[in-house]
């Protein structure tokens, strides 16, 4: 009997693939990547025996990983990347994990704002070594470690103090080659009192593995609008994590839209590190066919008078499976914290399923925290009411589904993203019928 678990074999192939790649030129980055690879090898892929992975089985993903990591990217692919947001944005595009200046307009950024590779940034600002990439811990998650090991050079966006960036920064990660694995990494720092809008948009033309990590640090009084739109090929695997740290009075407004991939898992970690920091996070995930979509949020209130509100909704059709886990953690010093977490789900068929778990962990005594979750089907009374006004059954259903999403999308801020969501809803309805 073979005593080696399949995982060990998988890890060894992944290690070999890593060793065959040219090492990072920057010694700091190289060291980091080496340590991350070992961190990953020590952990292996998570199994459903782990509480955090109870509902998401990545065995098939793990089996494809070694081979897909070896797939060669197409450096000359010319996919038709219709941007989600209009020309009034600064575009930064990656195709098959490779930065594409020809599909980007980063040069339009006002002077003083850096948007480029981390190695380039470190060459001008070596002191940043101590600051960059400290939010996501390779020891915390195998997928973060894997990302650090393979992402190598990340996209860095740095705004100095007192900059108000009018145009949104639109970062597009597109996989063009079939069965390719990419590891997008984004590091963002907003200087004190700076403001910006960042949109990450993930798409793929074929089945692909995407494992992304984004780290965002907002200094005092900075404000970031963050959007993440995941609309990958339905046979893709998408794992992603965002780590956000908010200093005093900093504010995060975020919206996650997950509609694609066969298996998608997103983790949003927000640490309200400074007093009066504020986070307002929304998310909408929808699945059909056999899609599996997990959305996790982890909000840490670590300073007094911090506020957060999380509103997440799921819509599942056919045999789609959803998982929602929302955790609010209030540290002892975070007095006068206010936090509110809600998750509402709509199941459009008997075969659809959701596991939802909101959690509060509170170690301060003077706080105002609430959480709630509900899951249901379309309301028959509402359906009959609409039909009694002459509206056909299918139209009435889709009106109610759009209304469910619309309540959340109402103040999305970027019209194109709300439109995108509505489009996906209509697609969902077609599949469902």
């Amino acid at each position, binding site marked *: 009997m073979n005593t080696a678990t399949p995982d060990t074999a998988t890890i060894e192939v992944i290690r070999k693939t890593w060793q065959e790649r040219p090492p990072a030129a920057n010694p700091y980055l190289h060291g980091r990547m080496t340590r991350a690879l070992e961190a990953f090898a020590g952990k292996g892929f998570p199994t459903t025996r782990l509480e955090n992975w109870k509902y998401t089985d990545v065995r098939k993903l793990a089996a494809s990983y070694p081979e897909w990591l070896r797939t060669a990217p197409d450096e000359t692919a010319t996919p038709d990347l219709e941007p989600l947001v209009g020309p009034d944005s600064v575009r930064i595009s990656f195709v098959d994990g490779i930065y594409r200046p020809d599909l980007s307009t980063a040069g339009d950024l006002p002077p003083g704002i850096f948007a480029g590779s981390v190695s380039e940034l470190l060459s001008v600002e070596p002191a940043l070594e101590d600051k960059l990439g400290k939010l996501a811990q390779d020891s915390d998650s195998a997928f973060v470690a894997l990302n650090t090991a393979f992402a190598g050079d990340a996209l860095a966006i740095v705004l100095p103090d007192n900059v108000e960036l009018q145009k949104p920064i639109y970062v597009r990660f597109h996989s063009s080659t079939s069965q390719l694995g990419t590891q997008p990494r984004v590091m963002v720092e907003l200087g004190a009192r700076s403001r910006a809008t960042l949109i990450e948009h993930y798409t793929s033309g074929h089945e692909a593995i995407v494992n992304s990590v984004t780290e965002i640090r907002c200094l005092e009084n900075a404000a970031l609008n963050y959007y993440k739109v995941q609309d990958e090929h339905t046979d893709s695997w998408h794992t992603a994590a965002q780590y956000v740290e908010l200093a005093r009075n900093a504010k995060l407004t975020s919206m996650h839209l997950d509609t694609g991939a066969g298996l998608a898992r997103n983790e949003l970690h927000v640490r309200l590190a400074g007093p009066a920091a504020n986070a307002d996070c929304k998310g909408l995930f929808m699945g059909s066919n056999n899609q599996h979509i997990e959305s996790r949020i982890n909000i840490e209130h670590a300073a007094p008078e911090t506020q957060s509100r999380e509103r997440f909704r799921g819509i599942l059709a056919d045999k789609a499976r959803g998982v929602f886990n929302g955790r609010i953690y209030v540290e002892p010093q975070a007095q006068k914290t206010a936090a509110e977490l809600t998750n509402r789900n709509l199941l459009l068929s008997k075969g659809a399923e959701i596991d939802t778990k909101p959690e509060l962990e509170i170690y301060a005594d003077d706080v105002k925290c609430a959480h709630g979750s509900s899951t249901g089907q379309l309301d028959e009374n509402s359906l009959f009411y*609409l039909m009694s*006004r002459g509206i056909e059954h299918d139209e009435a259903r889709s009106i109610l589904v759009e209304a469910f999403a619309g309540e959340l999308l109402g103040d999305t801020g970027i019209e194109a993203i709300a439109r995108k969501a509505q489009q996906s809803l209509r697609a969902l309805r077609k599949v469902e019928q």
Partner: protein
Amino acid sequence: MLIEIKNLHASVNDIEIIKGLDLDVAPGEVHAIMGPNGSGKSTLAQALAGREDYVVTEGSVSYKGQNLLDMEPDSRARAGLFLSFQYPVEIPGVSNVYLLKAALNACRKEKGETEIDAVEFMRFIKDKAKLMELDEKFLSRGVNEGFSGGEKKRNEIFQMAVLEPDLAILDETDSGLDIDALKVVANGLNAQRDGQRSFLLITHYQRLLDYIEPDYVHVLADGRIIRSGGKELALELEENGYDNILAAAS
């Protein structure tokens, strides 16, 4: 006849509520159906509108010469049948305007007409809102969302004014209304009596009939019409209560 109901039997959860009801309504007529609680008034309204869990087990309903019972609720509505709900549903996220536009366009689509022009539509519904003394801001709010009882009922009649049905079934439209709201609703209804449109007023109390004069009054008891008469029957009921009539009929 606009609608001919013959020997109608209807059940809810396998319990028979309507037990052989006959009723004919000609174009332009106003019929009041009165009866004590539990007599089957609302069941009749819901069954005619086509609610799934109100199962017709026997009898026939002919509407404009068609078999109404074969039609889905939305087809019934597009054929000009309107139900004003006793308990209108709140639908957050769907504005009144959106609902009405979808409803109007569904009718137009069936007739092979193009979608209604947006400007024309807004002008049309604003006129109708004025008739029901509904503030224009109600139009953009979610359907019945956070409306008071009276506002909900006014909204029902407003929808009816917009959809211009041939047969309006009003299920306890007067319940839960104070006298001022009742007057507004009654005025709205009277404005829609044009000699062609027919009404089925389902009510427990005679009060509504002070404002809307019916051509016929029927007393419903235990799923059957036990007495029919002119508008004076309502006054008799008001004076003597249901018990006397029920006793006389048995």
